[in-house]
């Protein structure tokens, strides 16, 4: 469905990392393997490899974020790159500077990679399309469109626990409509060949024509959880009560909140994931979040190795062909 993939260079190597859509299974598996080998670095006493010495990575965040920005920063530093954090919400755009001008200014400072988070869907594509040829762009979340590094660290976590993908049944629960994480997870899971992807939520939070994404839609959480291997809970923003999406957090938790009792319907060895930050008592019970099947904190840890893998893959191309 996508047009020519601007994420790849002429030789099919990763140049930008903007969306999982359009990437081949082989490439995703290689990224997972690279992350696996890099994860040992993060466990050493000296947590650094010299892969990107002399390179400058810019965290260009137009939306606030703690976890994602921090793990990207750690990932780049462990690859020995110089890291610049720019928080644009409090910077130039409030003075009327356009995104393109901001980009040109940073390029003039000879930066090698932009890690972009922006409230508008398509922003990372826009930056990539207008970036200088030597610059790589990694999407750290654009509007409701994609959050591909989060999806990859989730795949990494799933593979660590489940090994193969092809027999898995995965349920993604909650506000799929507004979730860039869910969109990227769906693309990643289907590219990696899982047996079944389910999305679960009330009709107000399920996007139009959702079946075209290759998922099965459930409105009943109990049915959606039956015999799944992986449960991914999504964050519910408080403002959804205002836009007439939901009546109350109370009713949401009653119907779509994950409790130990509902989790019984999943496979006995099912794992529970959440991209964070969690609203305890809204999308899940604390007993589940802190329980034995929760792998939520592992996701955070895996985020560093996975982002190291993605950054280094994009930059290796830059180094060779520039």
């Amino acid at each position: 469905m996508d047009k020519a993939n601007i994420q790849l260079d002429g030789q099919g190597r990763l140049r930008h990392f903007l969306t999982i859509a359009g990437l081949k299974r082989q490439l995703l598996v290689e990224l997972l393997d690279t992350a696996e080998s890099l994860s040992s670095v993060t466990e050493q006493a000296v947590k650094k490899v010299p892969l990107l010495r002399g390179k400058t990575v810019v965290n260009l965040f137009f939306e606030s974020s703690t976890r994602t920005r921090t793990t990207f920063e750690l990932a780049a530093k462990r690859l020995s790159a110089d890291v610049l954090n720019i928080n644009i919400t409090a910077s130039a755009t409030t003075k009327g500077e356009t995104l393109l001008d901001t980009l040109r200014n940073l390029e003039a400072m000879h930066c090698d990679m932009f890690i972009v988070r922006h409230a508008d869907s398509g922003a990372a594509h826009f930056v990539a399309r207008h970036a200088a040829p030597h610059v790589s762009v990694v999407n750290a979340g654009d509007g409701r469109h994609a959050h591909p590094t989060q999806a990859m660290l989730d795949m990494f976590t799933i593979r660590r626990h489940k090994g193969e993908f092809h027999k898995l049944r995965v349920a993604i629960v909650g506000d799929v409509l507004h979730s860039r994480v869910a969109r990227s997870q769906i693309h990643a899971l289907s590219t990696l060949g899982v047996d079944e992807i389910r999305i679960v939520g009330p009709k107000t939070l399920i996007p139009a024509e959702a079946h075209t994404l290759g998922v099965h839609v459930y409105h009943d959480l109990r049915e959606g959880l039956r015999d799944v291997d992986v449960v991914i809970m999504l964050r519910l923003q408080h403002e959804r009560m205002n836009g007439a999406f939901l009546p109350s957090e109370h009713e949401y938790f009653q119907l779509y909140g994950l409790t130990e009792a509902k989790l019984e319907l999943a496979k006995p060895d099912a794992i529970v994931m959440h991209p964070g930050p969690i609203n305890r008592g809204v999308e899940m019970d604390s007993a589940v979040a802190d329980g034995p099947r929760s792998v939520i904190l592992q996701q955070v840890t895996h985020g560093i190795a996975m982002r190291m893998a993605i950054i280094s893959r994009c930059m290796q191309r830059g180094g060779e062909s520039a």
Partner: protein
Amino acid sequence: MRIHIRQGRLVDPGNEIDDIRDVYVADGVIVGVGTAPEGFHAESTIDARGRVVCPGLIDLRAHLREPGEEHKATIASETAAAARGGITSVCCTPNTRPVIDTPAVAGLIRRRARSAGMARVIPIGAFTQALDGEHLSEMAALKQAGCLGVSNGFRPMRDLTVMSRAMEYAATFDITVFVNPQDHALANNGCAHLGAVATRLGLAGVPAAAETVAVAALLALVDQIGVRVHFSLLSTTRAAQMIARARHEGLPVSADVSAHHLHLTENDVLDFDSLCHVRPPLRTLRDREGLRQWLARGAISAICSDHQPHEADAKLRPFTQTEPGISGLETLLPLSLRLVDEGVLTMTEAIARLSWHPARILGVQAGKLSVGMPADVCVFDPESHWVPGRHTLRSRGHNTPFLGWEMKGEVTHTLLEGRIVYERDEAPA
């Protein structure tokens, strides 16, 4: 100037002619069709062999940007683009700055157009003051000043009470109301069709119901009030069906569609192509087929350009922040002729939807080539291929997704009141 247009295929739907006929022009009017008037001596001859001669095209909707947005385009630049596109009359939307809510602004626009002399500009007046959706404009005065209709564009009316009163007021003076049917709340600032592509790209969607709900409400008001309403830019099959039924029942309504909605779909937005960011949004393939069908059956009786020239910066932003619209004057004719090639319309039907029908919607004596009528004529080579390019467009707006498409059918001459306002550079033999 006396001009003899020789041996062309005259396609004049208003007079039910499709035949090889000569056309004779003098003193700004048509003086003969088929046979020359007695004692006619041409000062100039246009050899139209192998070409189509038709009424100058009438475009029901274009943004000319003047006054107020001259950094995008001017009346002079865009009427020159119109002339190149074979368009001799352009309806200009009221959302200029200031808006066309006083005779002074309407007069200014007409004067600027006259002094440029490339195409006739027909101002569409504001339906409400400053398009605020709340206070009626002085419609009678606007009509006096040459506005052939009133419209609030996509700006919402406060509520249906204001809408119905404004319609009653317009009906009092026999003024046609142009509406862009879109329920503001349902559209919810979306920028793509609510469907598979918006879902995939995570773009806020405009449901088809935003259009059909508005059409249903407006048709109910027309039924009650009897006002003449023209629906601009239909984008869904369902809305076209509703218009067809209403027309069948005898309601005084008409509708048009933009040339781009007849060729593009939501899939063209994939890859966040901001050149395909338009309002109403490009819809499904099924909608495109439905629009084509209802265009062929006549429920949609006109094709417009919905010309919206932009400066380059307006499209150089993340998709959702880009300004909607396509620069379309110069591709209106070839995109319509493409429908002839694809078997959707006959040549006569296509030309009718670009000239005779729009003239009837506007209620003007134009859009046909009868003796005594102003000599607004378009001559085009139906077999000539050309490719729109950034540097070959006359419009100041280069924002079109059709750059690089192979177009078939190229205007060779445009006459406005008997004057040649555009002539294609002939390649040296």
